């Protein structure tokens, strides 16, 4: 039995519920035991485990320390979800004055302890594996758990959502219908859900971190604008999920 911990940072629990899904399969439930998860078991403090799954981004010092302690207690660390891997949708506040952000939502902003930055887990510790997605694809998680139990790991494939449309035989919404779509710059893994619903991908798996540079992203943004996408929308979607990768690319060179 592999001992598993599920750790939640700044996030929505959507990815954790994919862990719940994975554990409905008896072959997984028979090889793994969840020893720590505030959602699922009555254990208040995490002990040593074989695998720790971390969901969410880091917003404050407390979470940064927590992540380091998780790293120390876990043999293998997996960052799950776009928040943990790239920052996630909460990154949309980065760049604003943190005091303005706090004041907009809280009557007493002085009690809110958050960084002005949103850090993915991968900024603070070395992780052994990442599964992006908002939420992560349950099949990617079950595939990881099955392979890990056999001593292996899924092979990393660096491709965009376009590859998934091709495999599914979906007509390209961007080329054929002129629908603005972030598929070409977005990490694959969802199965091209949005194009299969006739809408453009909105980038929730985050920006693909290979083969892209500032020039290409800017050219792509211009194309989206030509197709009628609002400039603010383009910026929000590119930054909104894969923030860290986007900002690294925009600072220059490949991420």
């Amino acid at each position, binding site marked *: 039995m592999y001992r598993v911990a599920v750790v*939640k*940072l*700044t*996030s*929505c*629990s*959507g*990815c*954790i*519920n*994919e862990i*719940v*899904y994975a554990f*409905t399969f008896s072959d997984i439930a028979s090889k793994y*035991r*969840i020893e720590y998860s*505030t*959602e*699922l*078991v*009555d*254990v*208040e*403090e995490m002990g040593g485990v074989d695998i720790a799954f971390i969901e969410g981004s880091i*917003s*404050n010092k407390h*979470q940064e320390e927590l992540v380091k302690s998780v790293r120390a207690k876990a043999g293998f660390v997996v960052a799950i979800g776009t928040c943990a891997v790239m920052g996630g*949708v*909460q990154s*949309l*506040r980065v760049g*604003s004055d943190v005091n303005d*952000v*706090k004041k*907009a*939502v*809280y*009557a*007493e902003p002085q*009690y*809110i*302890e*958050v960084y002005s930055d949103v850090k993915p887990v991968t900024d603070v510790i070395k992780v052994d594996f990442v599964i992006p997605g*908002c*939420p992560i694809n349950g099949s990617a998680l079950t595939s990881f758990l099955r392979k890990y139990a056999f001593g292996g790991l899924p092979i990393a494939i660096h491709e965009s959502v376009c590859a998934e449309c091709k495999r599914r035989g979906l007509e390209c919404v961007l080329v054929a219908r002129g629908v603005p779509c972030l598929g070409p710059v977005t990490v694959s893994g*969802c199965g091209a*859900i*949005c194009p*299969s*619903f*006739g*809408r453009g991908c*909105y980038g*929730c798996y985050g920006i693909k971190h290979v083969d892209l540079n500032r020039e290409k992203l800017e050219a792509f943004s211009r194309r989206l604008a030509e197709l009628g996408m*609002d400039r*603010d*929308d383009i910026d*929000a*979607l590119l930054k*909104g999920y894969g923030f860290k990768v986007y900002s690294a690319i925009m600072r220059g060179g490949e991420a």
Partner: protein
Amino acid sequence: MKAVLTRVEGEGGILVVERGGYVENVFYEISEAPRFFEYIVVGRNAERVVDIVSRVCGLCGVSYSLVAAEAFEKCLGIEVDPEIRMLRAALHLAERVKSHVIHVFYMNLPEIAQAKSFAEFLQRNPQISRYAQDVLMWSRKAMEVFGGRFHNVVNIKIGGVYRVPDKSDVEKLEKEIATVIKAFTEFASFVLSIKPSDVVQNVKIHQVSLYSSSSEYPHLSDRVSLDGDVYSVAEFYKSISRAMQVQYSTALHYRVKGVESFVVGPFARFNQSYSKLSKEVRDFVEMYDWSPPLHSIMHSYVARIAEAYDALLTLEKYLDTFKSSAITNTSSIASTKSGAVCEYAVEAPRGILYHRYIVDIGKVKICDIITPTAQNLAAMSDIATAAIRGRKADASSIAIAKRIAISFDPCISCSVHALPVKIITA
């Protein structure tokens, strides 16, 4: 005294204020960091906001996207095709099934059946567990067909949906639903047969759920019922219920006229709208000697079972009459007037979720979201305080406070903006 909340969504804790070793007050604390959704949607196009707010909650994202879309549609005068409305309602009901089954099976059942965790329960009762998991898996499939995936669905847009599901996919769901309902009733029989006697009795507490004059069980509305008195949502959240800073702490609590706490969610819906559940569901519930009103919040699982059953029966009817010919709307919202107030409420799995936006030429200027758990926090605190005040501040008191929290099924990630708790003095 402090303890970590477990078997709830999100990261939170219990804070017990003691006096001379005895409990004086109980607070529930959110230890999770905020994500500032009300801030990050400002300046965004309303269309985008429908997708972004889904991320507030990994368990009830449909409720978020749906109520945002409905709010924008109402204030912008956009009509939604009745067939499409039914499709979105079906997606919402599938989410209700998912959320309730996850809560009852994974979080609540271990306690009422006295197991340490769902894993131990699963070992002891593999067949009952299989039934629950089969229902969960079917709700997953239904959400994938109607919405694209299990959470953060992609198929709700202002004016309708992006795509009507393929008839063949709907037929597959239809073929399975009789078996799923059978599995559900097996699981439900087991759950409803358990009657823990050591439950805390509620202090007199207000109950609030959405009101509609139709025969439909609470779903979407712009009116609420507070113990039978009907108010518009705008009025209720502006003046009847008020966010209050509480004594001893900085937690914001919603209270009726700033004083009395109230409960939202399955407990309140069941007690206020029992007659709107289908006869089959009421007969089933009564067969196990349950009837409204439920008196203890610790019996909320009865309401969740009843609601999930009712949702499955409604879905069965919907699948039977599904028409693939419905029209998806393509209306544009870019031409909105300045300063439009867009507000609406939905019965999310955990209770009323209220969204209010001020929109200027298609872009959000101001956003206010009031979540179910934020509203329930005052009641959680009051019920727990009444239950253990004067008792020794020890592990057994904490255990009661924990059980009360679990019974509410709090969604801490959703409600995080409501309550940074800092004890100021004891």
